[in-house]
C-alpha cells in the first residue's frame, strides 16, 4: 500500500539507509533504527504498518525483538530480512509470529511484494477486529458507545 509506514531495523547502517531511500522512492514512509531496543521504543511512540527486521544484531537480536514486539499487542506485521537466512531461524521467527522472511541480498521488488502482503494482512486483521467490536457493540449499546469513543 503506497504510503504505508515502514520501520527498518538493521545494524548495517548503510544497508538500512539504502533500503529507506529505495522504499521512500516508492512512496513508503520509513524510519530507520539500528537496534532492537530502538525499534521497541519507536513502536511504543509511533504506529507502523510493517517492521522489516534483521535477525542477527548485537545486543537484542531479531528473535528477541520480535517477541517484544508481539508483547505490544499491535497489528503491525513483522517481515524478517536477514543474511543468516536459513529455514531454521526463519521457522523460529514464523513460530514467534513473523509474517514472512527474505534472505539478503534480495531485490527491492521482492521486498515491496512482501511488504504489500504484510500490509494486506495487517489491514485484514485490523478490519476484522473493528467488525468484531461493532458486533459486540450491537449486542451491547454500552459497548458500542465505547467502540465509537475509541
Amino acid at each position, binding site marked *: 500500500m503506497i504510503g504505508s509506514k515502514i520501520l527498518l531495523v538493521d545494524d548495517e547502517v548503510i544497508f538500512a539507509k539504502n533500503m529507506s531511500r529505495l522504499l521512500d522512492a516508492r512512496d513508503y514512509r520509513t524510519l530507520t533504527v539500528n537496534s532492537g531496543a530502538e525499534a521497541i521504543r519507536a513502536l511504543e511512540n509511533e504506529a507502523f504498518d510493517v517492521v522489516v527486521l534483521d535477525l542477527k544484531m548485537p545486543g537484542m537480536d531479531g528473535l528477541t525483538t520480535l517477541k517484544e514486539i508481539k508483547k505490544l499487542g499491535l497489528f503491525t506485521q513483522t517481515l524478517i530480512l536477514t543474511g543468516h537466512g536459513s529455514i*531454521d531461524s526463519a521457522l523460529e521467527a514464523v513460530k514467534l509470529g513473523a509474517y514472512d522472511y527474505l534472505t*539478503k541480498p534480495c531485490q527491492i521488488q521482492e521486498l515491496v511484494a512482501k511488504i504489500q502482503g504484510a500490509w494486506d494482512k495487517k489491514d485484514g486483521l485490523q478490519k476484522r477486529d473493528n467488525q468484531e467490536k461493532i458486533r459486540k457493540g450491537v449486542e451491547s449499546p454500552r459497548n458500542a458507545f465505547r467502540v465509537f469513543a475509541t
Partner: protein
Amino acid sequence: MPSLPSNVSENFTATVSDADHRYRYRRLFKRFVLLTLVCSVVPLLLVGWGISTQYNYSAETRLMTDFRNEVQHHRKVIEMFLKEHSSKLELIAMTHSRQDFIRSERLRFVFDKINQERWTLTDLGVIDATGKHLAYVGPYDLLDKNYREAHWFKMVMEKGLYISDMFMGFRREPHFVIAVRGDDEQGPWILRATVDTEAFRALVENVMIGRTGEVFLVNGEGIYQTTPRYSGRIMENASMAVGDVHPGIRVRQEDADAGFNGERSVRQIVSTAWLETPQWMLVVRQDFDEAFAAENRANLSVLIFLHVSAATILLVTVLVTRYMLNLVKRRDAEAEILNRQLVQASKMASIGELSVGVAHEINNPLAIISTEREILLDASKAAGGIDPAFGVQLDDSMNQIDAQIKRCKRITHNLLRFSRRTQSVIDTVDINAYIREVVELMAREAKSSGITFFERLSPDVPPILSDPSQLQQVFLNLITNAIDAHEGKNYGSVAVSSMFLEAEGAVEMVVSDTGCGIAEDHLSKVFDPFFTTKPMGRGTGLGLSICYSIIRRLGGQIQVRSVLDQGTDFTIRLPLRSTEVQTNPNDLANQMERAA
C-alpha cells in the same frame, strides 16, 4: 570430473603407512606366539622332564634290583651244582672202599649214574695216598699218572674235600676237579671227578643276559674260570680288576673297555658275587642300553610325544594368533575408519560453523551492493536524458552486477545448506522409483553427451524413511559429477544400482561411471568443502561436501572408490529409517498458519 591420476583406493588415506602397520602387526604376531609358547610349551617341557626323570629313576632302581636278584639266584644255582656234586662224591667215598672200584665195573656204574640225568662229569677216578691213579673212567689215558705233586691232591689230602681252580693237568686242557678223601682199611684214598668244562660253562651262562651280556667266573688271582662271551678265554687273565672278596651282591654301572663285546666301548651294568666254595667271583654284565631298552623306548616315546605336542602347540598357536591378529586388524581398521570419519565429521562441523559466519558476513555487503545498484538504477531513471551509449553501458554493468550478486548468493546459500542450516523433511521414499525419476531426468539432460545410463535396481529394496528432496540433491550432484567425468570422451556410461542389505537393515545405492577416475591423493579431499578439480567458474567444490553432509545427517554413509582412467563408484548406505528429526511438511504449514 577432470582427469585425475590414481589407483583403486578408499576415500580416506591412511595416517600411518602400510609398512608401519605391517611392522607393528609382525611384532605383535611374534610377541603373541612367543608368549603363548612360553606359557604352554615351557610347562609342558617341565612336566615332561619331571615325569621322565622320575620314571627313569624308578625304572633304574627296579632294574638294578632285578639284576641283583637274578645274580643272587644264579650264584645259588652254581653253588648248588658244586655242592650237589661234592655231596654225591662224599657219599660215594663214605659208602665205598677203593677195592670196590678197582676190582669191578663199579666205578663206571657210578660214573654213568651221576651223568644219567645230565652230562656234567668228564671223568671219574680213584687215587691212592701216594698219588697213584688206581681206577679211572673217562676219555683220557690217565691210569698210570701220579698226582702226588698236584696242588689239588695236596689240598684234598689236607681238607678232605676240595674243588680246584681251572688247570691244564696231564690232559693239557682247562678243567677243574672235585675231589673227596675216603678212608678204608688201607688208609686214605681220593675219589676225583672232573667237571665237564662246557657243561659247566652252559650252567654258568644260563641266565638272562640278552644279546650284549656275558657271564663268567674269575678266581681270586683274576684268572677266567669259564670262557666269557666277548672278553677273553678261559684261564687267561681277566680284563677287570677282581678286588677284595665281598659278601652279597654288588651292582654298579661302569664304562666297559673298548671292544669288550667286539663292537664298541659302552656303558655297562656290572654285577659281582663271590661263591663260597671255591672262591670264585661270578661276574654278570650287560650293555646299559640293552638292559634299559624298554625304558629307553619309553623315553623315546615321551620325547616324541613332547615334540609332537610342542609342534602341535606351535601350529595351533600360530593359527590362533593369526586368527586373533586378523580380528585385531579388522577392529583396528574399523576403529581407524571410525576415527577418520570422526575427524572428517569434526572437520565438516568446523567448516560448517565457519561457513555460517562467512555466509552471513558476505550476505550483508552483498545486500548493500544490491541496494546501491537499485539506487543507481532509480537515479538513472529519474535523471532522464542520459546519453544512449552510456545508458546501454550502464544497463550492461547493472545486469552484470546483478548476475554476480546472484552468483555470490548461490554460493552462500550452498554454504548454509552444507552447514546444516536446513532441516530435513522425512517422508517415505521408494528408492527404486526415485532413482528411475532422477536417472530419467539426467539422461534427458545428457542426451547429446554420448553417455548411456543404466539402472540395476533390486526389486527387494523396501521403501525407506528419508528426506526425498535432499536425496534428490545428492543424486543430482553425483550424476552431474559422473557426467562431467566423461569430458573429453565420446562415449561412456553411468550406472545407478540399488540393493537391500537385510542383515544391516540398510539400503545401498551405487553411482558408477566410466569417467576419468580420481587420483589417490585427491580421494581423501573430495568431500572437503571448496575442493574441486573443475575449471574456474565450473564448480564451487561444495557438491560432494553437501552430499556428504546430507547423507551423514540422514544417518547414512558415503564412500568413494576410484580407478584412474577407468571410473569411479560412489556408494551410499542409508538406514531404513533416517535418524534425523522428522518434520512433516504439513506440520510446517500448520505451524506457519498458526503463527499467522
